[in-house]
């Protein structure tokens, strides 16, 4: 009987820090190939259609960027949370509330049509998302309530709230009784412009800017240092004069604001109104993006593109191989497992040794 033995490295392996996400993606591709083979397809054909074919056309690249943008923006905020040991898993709810708050302008004030509306909506969405995220943060700092459970419960509440808004008070009178709001006016939507054959709107450059800003903040400012120290050792952080409570509020507010911003931009660019479902689970998928990107801004940018391609891959195998697009969610989940498992390689050497099961007495 062989078993795995972990031997602690004397220090973090730099090589493995870079290599582990690559290992994880490679294992995921192998797993996907096995799934295609099990379904009676040529694994290489399946891998081609799922991972590569979608990005061979300009239209595919455009879709890839569109899907990656909200994932990257949300994951950036989540990375600050996770680095500082605040487990916000309610980004989906913060996205929803942000989008609702931002939509107040075009829905309740449809005659207020001028260029200020666009930035105002984005700011309001950020404020809405941040305030909503502060609920679990405050419950954590004041009462010591577990933020994982509260932030998740609020996702269900926010989705139901959106459902009520679009069926009740905000339902469009011209909507033939469909649960939709009025269409947003021209200054409340993001129009795409031609960038070398690819049609993009403002959201992608905003995401890119946020990546750069956060990378600089994390690398070379005191705030970045504070986030990391408090995450690794709250006690050490306290000696340095950093407040754990303030950090919790900051991390939640920041990630809530970014989730709200992402939600608003999805609505403004892809839907143009509110409806019962505005996100295909971006807030949850962004958790995978944050971890796959090793909680590092540049890593998150790459991870966002990788995960976004799996959405497109799901659609591609549906049309070309008549397989279910739901395979994409499975592959995303498997990828997260592989990422977390591969991270072990950074801190430990893994050896396969002969021996009996269990560790027994080694003293």
């Amino acid at each position, binding site marked *: 009987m062989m078993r795995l033995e972990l031997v602690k490295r004397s220090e973090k392996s730099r090589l493995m820090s870079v290599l582990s996400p690559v290992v994880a993606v490679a294992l995921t591709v192998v797993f996907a190939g096995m799934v295609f083979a099990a379904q009676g397809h040529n694994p290489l054909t399946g891998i081609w259609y799922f991972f590569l074919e979608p990005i061979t056309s300009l239209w595919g690249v455009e879709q890839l960027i569109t899907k990656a943008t909200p994932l990257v923006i949300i994951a950036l905020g989540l990375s600050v949370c996770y680095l500082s040991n605040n487990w916000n898993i309610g980004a989906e709810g913060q996205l929803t509330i942000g989008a609702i708050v931002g939509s107040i302008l075009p829905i309740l004030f449809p005659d207020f049509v001028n260029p200020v509306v666009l930035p105002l909506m984005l700011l309001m969405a950020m404020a809405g998302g941040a305030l909503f995220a502060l609920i679990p943060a405050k419950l954590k700092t004041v009462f010591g309530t577990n933020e994982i459970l509260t932030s998740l419960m609020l996702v269900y*509440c926010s989705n139901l709230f959106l459902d009520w808004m679009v069926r009740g008070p905000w339902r469009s009178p011209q909507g033939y009784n469909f649960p939709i709001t009025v269409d947003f006016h021209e200054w409340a939507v993001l129009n795409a412009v031609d960038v070398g054959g690819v049609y993009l709107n403002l959201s992608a450059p905003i995401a890119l800017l946020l990546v750069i800003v956060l990378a600089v903040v994390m690398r070379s400012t005191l705030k970045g240092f504070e986030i990391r120290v408090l995450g690794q050792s709250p006690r050490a952080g306290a000696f340095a004069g950093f407040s754990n409570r303030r950090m919790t509020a900051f991390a939640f507010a920041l990630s809530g604001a970014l989730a709200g911003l992402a939600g608003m931009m999805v609505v403004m660019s892809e839907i143009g109104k509110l409806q019962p479902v505005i996100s295909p689970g971006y807030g949850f998928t962004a958790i995978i993006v944050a971890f796959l990107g090793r909680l590092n801004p540049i890593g998150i940018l790459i991870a966002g593109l990788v995960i976004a391609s799996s959405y497109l891959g799901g659609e591609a195998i549906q049309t070309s191989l008549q397989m279910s697009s739901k395979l994409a969610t499975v592959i995303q989940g498997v990828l997260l497992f592989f990422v*977390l498992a591969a991270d072990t390689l950074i801190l430990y050497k893994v050896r396969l040794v002969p021996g009996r099961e269990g560790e027994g007495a080694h003293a």
Partner: protein
Amino acid sequence: MLEAIILTIITAATPLLLAATGELVVEKSGVLNLGVEGMMVMGAVAGFAVTISTGSPLLGIVGGAIAGMLVSLIFAFVTLTLVANQVASGLALTLFGLGLSGLMGESFVGQPGIKLQSLHVPGLIDLPFVGKILFGQDLLVYLSFAAVFGVSWFLNRTRAGLILRAVGDNHTSAHALGYSVVGVRYLAVIFGGAMAGLGGAYLSVAYTPLWVENMTAGRGWIALALVVFASWIPWRAAIGAYLFGAVTVLQLHTQALGIGFPSQFLAMLPYLATVIVLVAISGNRRATLFNTPSSLGKSFVPDR
């Protein structure tokens, strides 16, 4: 009317109680498995699949438990053998379970299932009022109560239970005494997987015998909250599960009465109740800290 209400409370509480009892044992061994929702939904889809392909709801329930165990093994391997972060791995298990169940269940959407029959204790079922409530339930309801008593007895009255608690409270000492920390935790996680799988199978085989994607609708998370609410004491988990069952039923009955209150707000009740209960419980820190397994959520690597 009252009898009908109590009967629906039981059906709403049972899946929560099954999953919460399992997770309680997992957490007592020092492992935080946030993947209850994923294991439950896998139990639901597997339970439904086995039921309609074999025609036997009983086999379906077994299938649900096995599915829960299998996916919990992935979590166990990643967190116990490879010492990955438990919180993140639990989230991965939930996302993976929701995805895989959706994929597996695609062909079952809209198909009628087969309902698990209630066990009728002859004679006693005809007792006025209590007859149907106490003696006319299905197997899983009785099993959920057996689990509460069984787990309570196991944790407090057996040597194995003592070892499990020792592993959860101080894994370094338990290891020094020669107990297999990782081995105990593997068994606990698998037990938790089986119980969550049963809870999920209850939904698709007994509660509403059909398959709907994401049909667990956050019940796995509520079960996690129940363990905190119960401060790791099995009978308190039972009380909690029944309180939540009551909230769910209250919501359904108010909706049926049609008093013009938006149904979406009523549907929020169980989730809001969870938040409120968690806040109330965390206010009482002394009682919670006393029972919290000290090694909860911490990875263990035996030093050699």
